[in-house]
């Protein structure tokens, strides 16, 4: 398993996590408080209770789904809409955005959670807005026209007058300093730990970047790029796809890479973007991370679009255009698809927790924009083959914490940046919510990220799931105290959010295997959107699938209209 001299210590630190959880538990029982005195906060587990009820069918209370009485609402009425969208994450909201742009306004979005946004949601406090998940998007290529349209609407990008190139608007483009790394007792700018790199480390680092450059400039016989956003536009040349057969660690080892700083950085990037270590990530996905953002290797790094609310700003922009059509706290518990050829409508059962009753909706089309792992529990009449494929979709859990600070912690070396990373920490570090507002003093919110990527025995996984707020608070403070000894003085509130199924995992063989295309095929008049259909959890991919599904619906409507006219 240890292909390429994996950074040592992670596995021992996984134990460290469990040990600190245990220690925090012990201290709670002995009444000895290790967490900062007076510190408060919440542990949030979005979707977990309702979602698990959905999985266990307890919402249906044993009620048999019967197509004949399925049309009956609890109060006997049936509501109708042209398009029902399941899930108000980026995919569902993008689908609605595209429908609206195409002139269709009879749609509803049903969302399990109390708020829209999915893993791009955000929060707000007196000081600032802050993200609860995804928090940036690299400046898209100008050829990604729909996404460029969205960002132009948001006044996040503009086209220059002279040479018509796409640039990020200054207040949205991440401001300097972007990132810093804590290594050997001080903060340094840039994520590559140059201060500890030997000459041979630097040689490997530049050789790695040369390989990345070659992949950026690579074109197949049709002129397609190897790695491009969206994944659907990537070349399917066997030379590229064979990277999906091995792990990133195996590829690094094959290429003769053994430099610790390099392996650490690549591992960090995989954990950051995919929630997987290099031993788990497909080498294709790893190279996608490094090579998909640039068209030519000579281009400068693209700007990063970011907001205080993270990608919550995109959620807010999209939601505001059709907020009256978003039904939050309305889990869809059953979808019975129409056949898609005749005018038979889909039937959708929606749970209303306020009245503790079931609503029944009919829709000519459904866009299922929630994660695929829900479909076996929700979607009736699927081919068994599809269910089997979907069961092979694997999702990773994340812990995100928001630390509310009354002032900035002191730090030696490079100044507080947007992204602050600790070399060889098991966690990903934190970003600063007020960075983009331009405030450099006073209160702020730090958002701390941790993907649970290590394979855990189910016993340990249960312990993690059962961990209390005090335990998580202790884990987070143990990570940050060594770099900010005065953190306790600054910290006023610490909220922890546990995402059970945050991200689709691009393990070897998944992205270019057969499960993904199969899951994307419509079932009757139910169309699918969601970033998991790309195999990568990225805003651009969620957006791509939302727009694609909306376009499929519009095309189906045109077909049936022309078929009707032909009759």
């Amino acid at each position, binding site marked *: 398993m240890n292909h390429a001299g994996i950074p040592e210590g992670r596995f021992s630190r996984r134990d460290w996590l469990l040990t600190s959880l245990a220690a925090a538990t012990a201290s709670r029982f002995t009444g000895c408080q290790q967490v900062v005195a007076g510190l408060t906060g919440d542990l949030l587990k979005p979707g977990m209770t309702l979602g698990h009820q959905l999985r266990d069918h307890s919402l249906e209370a044993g009620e048999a789904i019967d197509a004949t009485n399925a049309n009956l609402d609890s109060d006997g009425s049936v509501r109708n809409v042209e398009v029902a969208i399941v899930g108000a994450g980026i995919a569902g909201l993008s689908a609605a955005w595209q429908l609206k742009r195409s002139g269709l306004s009879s749609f509803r979005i049903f969302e399990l959670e109390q708020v829209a946004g999915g893993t791009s949601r955000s929060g707000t406090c007196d000081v600032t807005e802050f993200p609860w998940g995804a928090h940036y998007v690299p400046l898209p290529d100008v050829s990604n026209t729909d996404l460029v349209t969205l960002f132009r609407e948001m006044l996040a990008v503009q086209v220059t007058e002279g040479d018509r190139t796409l640039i*990020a608007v*200054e*207040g949205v483009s991440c*401001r*300097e300093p972007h990132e810093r790394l804590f290594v050997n007792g001080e903060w340094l700018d840039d994520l590559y730990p140059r201060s500890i790199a030997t000459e041979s480390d630097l040689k490997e680092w530049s050789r790695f970047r040369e390989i990345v450059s070659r992949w950026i400039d690579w074109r197949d016989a049709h002129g397609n790029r190897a790695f491009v956003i969206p994944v659907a536009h990537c070349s399917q040349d066997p030379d590229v796809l064979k990277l999906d057969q091995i792990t990133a660690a195996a590829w690094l080892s094959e290429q003769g890479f053994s430099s610790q700083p390099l392996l650490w950085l690549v591992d960090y990037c995989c954990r950051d973007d995919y929630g997987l270590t290099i031993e788990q990530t497909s080498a294709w996905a790893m190279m996608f991370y490094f090579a998909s953002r640039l068209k030519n290797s000579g281009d400068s790094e693209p700007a990063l679009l970011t907001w205080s609310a993270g990608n919550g700003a995109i959620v807010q922009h999209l939601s505001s255009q059709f907020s009256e059509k978003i039904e939050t706290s309305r889990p869809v518990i059953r979808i019975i698809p129409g056949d898609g050829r005749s005018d038979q409508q889909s039937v959708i059962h929606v749970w209303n927790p306020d009245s503790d009753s079931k609503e029944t909706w009919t829709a000519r089309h459904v866009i299922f924009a929630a994660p695929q792992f829900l479909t076996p529990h929700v979607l009736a009449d699927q081919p068994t083959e599809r269910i089997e494929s979907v069961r092979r979709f694997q999702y990773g859990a994340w812990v995100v914490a928001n630390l509310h600070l009354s002032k900035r912690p002191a730090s030696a070396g490079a100044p507080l940046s947007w992204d602050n990373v600790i070399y060889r920490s098991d966690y990903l570090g934190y970003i600063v919510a007020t960075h983009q507002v331009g*405030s*450099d*003093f006073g209160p702020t919110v730090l958002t701390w990220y941790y993907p649970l990527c290590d394979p855990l025995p189910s016993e340990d996984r249960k312990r993690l799931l059962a961990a209390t707020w005090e335990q998580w608070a202790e884990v987070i403070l143990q990570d940050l105290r060594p770099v900010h000894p*005065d953190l306790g003085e600054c910290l006023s509130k610490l909220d922890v959010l546990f995402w059970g199924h945050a991200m689709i995992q691009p393990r070897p063989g998944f992205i270019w295997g057969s499960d993904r295309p199969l899951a994307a095929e419509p079932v009757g008049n139910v169309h699918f959107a969601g970033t998991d259909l790309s195999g990568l959890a990225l805003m651009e991919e969620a957006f791509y699938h939302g727009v694609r599904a909306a376009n499929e619906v519009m095309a189906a409507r045109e077909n049936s209209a022309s078929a009707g006219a032909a009759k």
Partner: protein
Amino acid sequence: MDRAPLFLLYLNVLIVATCGLIYELLAGTLASYLLGDSVTQFSLVIGLYLSAMGVGAWLSKYITRQLAACFIEVELAVAMVGGFSAPLLFVAFGAIDWFRPLLFGMVFVIGTLVGLELPLLMRILKEHVDFDDLVSRVLTFDYIGALLASLMFPILLVPSLGLVRTSLVFGILNAAVGIWGSFLLRPLMTARRAGGLRGRGVLIIGLLTAGIVKADTLTRYSEEQQLSASIVYAETSPYQRILITKNRTGFQLFLNGHLQFNSTDEYRYHEALTHPPMSAVNTPKRILVLGGGDGLAVREVLKHPSVEQVSLVDLDPSMTTLADRFPPLADLSQQALSDPRVKVINSDAFVWAGQQTGEPFDVILIDFPDPSSFSVGKLYTSYFYRRIHRLLADDGRIGIQCTSPLVAPQSYWCILNTMEDAGFHVQPYHASVPTFGIWGFALASKFPLESEPILAEDLRQPLRFLNSRTMSTLFSMPNDLTRHDSEVNRLNNQALVQYYEQEWRLLE
């Protein structure tokens, strides 16, 4: 022991007492200088030092054998700890987070050691001298030493040697006295013991001497150079380190170690910053000053009779209330910030400017520190200037300080190019300020300007630097100050901070 060594031993007491008080004064000065709030720091240091001496005196009873050798040991220990106290604390201040425990720990250790000295010495001498006589003489020399130290420290030592060298020199003196004592008290110890003590004494003197040789390197890391110009005010606010020094010509304000003004020639700078834009507007009424918490630019603004309202936005309340705590600044600024027309807003100008929607300003003066960090660099970006553009009346003017066009031409022109990128029309100008050298400014407006402004005639007070003839000469740029190409300074590249660092580094 005969009379001569006895007298020499009293001299020894005098020197030991002087050294002891010097270490105490050093610790007090260092603490109030580095931590601010001198009353508290001095009070704590003196209290702790005296009580530690008490602890030393109490401990002395446990030393029962080889009193003379122990006395020399204590002297050498004081020499080592006291001698290195100031350099160690200076270096530690920037490097560690537990500075206070270190400082007070050292004060306690030195106090305890010094507290051991006199009881030991008195017990050594009591066999040879009448006790009444002994007490009176030892204490007399002790107090004379204290007087000597308290006179020498502010008058001679700090101005000529500085804190670090004073500390090291007195450490050497202390060690020398220790060695000398080993000769005076020779009859009371074995030859071997005396030899060992002398060897160690010489070693300590060697170390301290090496410290003096390296002191220059050390002062570069600390602010000692400024300190030697006599610090009259020091404070560490949550935002910056504020320091005022004084010399024969006047006083100087430093923020984070960067000189902001010298009271002798600041009028040249502030008149040049203020009057060109103020004169270019017919009747400037609403004025905005960004930065400039010292109130000196506001003082110039208030010389224009049409002014009705001045808003001053400065991040640091410690800066805008400095005139209250440091009266010479109040005199210099003519209490400008207390004028009823002036409203002081303590806020980050970058954030504040983004929140304003009210009536535009006729003149905006931008007087930020030089762009030496990202948090100041953002106040020179095209993004910030676009925010400012919205705050300016259509026929309004902006005056801005833009570092030295001679020392840092790329930085200077980067600021002007960035303002142009944000939609301003910009005229460069400069003035000579002896403390700074050739200093750069710019006059900016929303519409192209044909000529340079003519100095307003109806000022309430005469100016010391500008007159109607000199003002136009500010706008003629000599050959060595011509335009440079540069990138536009944006939030996402902070090009200016890099230019600035490269250009000013050459001077160091």
